[in-house]
């Protein structure tokens, strides 16, 4: 019973918010403010028709491809920079500068360069993931204590062996910080790209609902987006824990 009360108390702000929303929607009776229960009904309808799943799948694949390729490429570039002083000195100022540009700032340029097609959101997500992950990987590698590297060398290990066995595993927390920071951001990016340029996906669904004044659909997409963004971040966090928890 105590546990139940504790959970109830912990989640009371959410419950109060939903209650106020429900009451406001029922009192207002306007299509501009559907009640929470109406949004849930619409969510169920969209789910049953397959429309939501189809659009979510489009967005999810774009996010996954862009995020994984951007993240992996970022890790590779970060490793090259971290292991080679000349490459670091050449690339670091450029990466630091490009890192500070908001991802959506690339949208007009990419629309002209890439065109309005499937590659556009993927490239934007790639950019979104690449720069922070490259920078975080570089930092993680640079933070590996020199004493560990010297100890490993004294044991006869080659530079590549040390990279694989010591430097990269010890850089994982920093790499995951970069990945986690962007896990939510990539969903905002895909949303914006789909709203402006692509006719499929959760963003396109939202902008279409706006033109039809379907606030309930907009709210469903917002809820789904929030859930996906939160879930993505949690999944990255769980992966980090899985890989590093036994020794950290």
């Amino acid at each position, binding site marked *: 019973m105590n546990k139940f009360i504790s959970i109830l108390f912990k989640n009371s702000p959410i419950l109060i918010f939903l209650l106020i929303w429900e009451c406001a929607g029922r009192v207002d009776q306007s299509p501009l403010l559907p009640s929470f229960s109406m949004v849930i009904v619409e969510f169920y309808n969209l789910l049953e028709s397959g429309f939501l799943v189809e659009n979510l799948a489009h967005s999810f694949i774009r996010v996954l491809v862009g995020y994984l390729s951007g993240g992996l490429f970022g890790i590779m570039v970060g490793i090259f920079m971290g292991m080679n002083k000349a490459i670091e000195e050449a690339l670091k100022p450029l990466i630091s500068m490009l890192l500070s540009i908001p991802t959506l700032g690339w949208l007009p340029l990419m629309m002209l360069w890439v065109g309005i097609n499937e590659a556009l959101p993927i490239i934007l997500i790639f950019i979104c993931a690449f720069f922070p992950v490259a920078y975080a990987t570089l930092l993680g590698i640079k933070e590996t204590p020199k*004493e560990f590297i010297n100890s490993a060398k*004294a*044991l*006869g290990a080659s530079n590549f*062996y040390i990279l694989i*066995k*010591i430097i990269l595993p010890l850089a994982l927390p920093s790499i995951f910080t970069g990945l986690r920071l962007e896990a939510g951001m990539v969903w905002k990016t895909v949303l914006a790209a789909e709203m402006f340029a692509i006719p499929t996906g959760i963003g396109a669904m939202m902008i279409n609902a706006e033109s039809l004044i379907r606030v309930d659909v907009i709210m469903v997409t917002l809820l789904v987006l929030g859930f996906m963004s939160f879930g993505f971040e949690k999944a990255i966090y769980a992966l980090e824990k899985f890989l590093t928890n*036994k*020794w*950290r």
Partner: protein
Amino acid sequence: MGYIKLQNIFTDFCLQNINLNIKNGDFVVIQGHSGAGKSTVLNALAGFVEYEGDIYLDGKCLNDVPIQKRGVGYLHQAIHLFPNLSVFENISFGLKAQKTGKKIVVKEVNSIMQRLQISHLLQRYPKNLSGGEKQRVGIARSIITKPKVLLLDEPLSSLDEVTARGIRKELKSLAKAYNLTVIYVTHNLVDAEELADKIVYINKGKILQ
């Protein structure tokens, strides 16, 4: 074999014309105040710092030999066990890095762990080890590759006297069993008295005696 000769060794801001001959199998303790240059001698021998002069091991000049190929084992006072590797992985690190066969790795690791009485720590990670256990694992890791020379930089300084006494005994017997030349840096007089075949005093980067 592990005959060492240091000839006219200078380093930036520290060592000034160090000359030292150490016979094979000797247990040499280097003493001196903090900042005297004791650790820098070890770092130069291991190849961790740049130096002027010549260092010979068994008559071979080490000046241009990379750290990996010097045949020198090294243990720092902070031990620096790799935190992401288990005790087994830490101890076997050197053998695996040198592509030793799996069966030999397991045999060698088991043998040294038994000798140092740390077999029960096999799957543990460094974060779950006590100070004395870390020292034993560090010692096992540094000698499993059978280096010609073992460099120890104040390895017992962070331990209580009872634990330190036990490890001191083990060190002495391991050095004999493996026919190791050991250079041991400390400012602890007990360490020097109990372990040394030869004591070298360093002050302000110079050998006093």
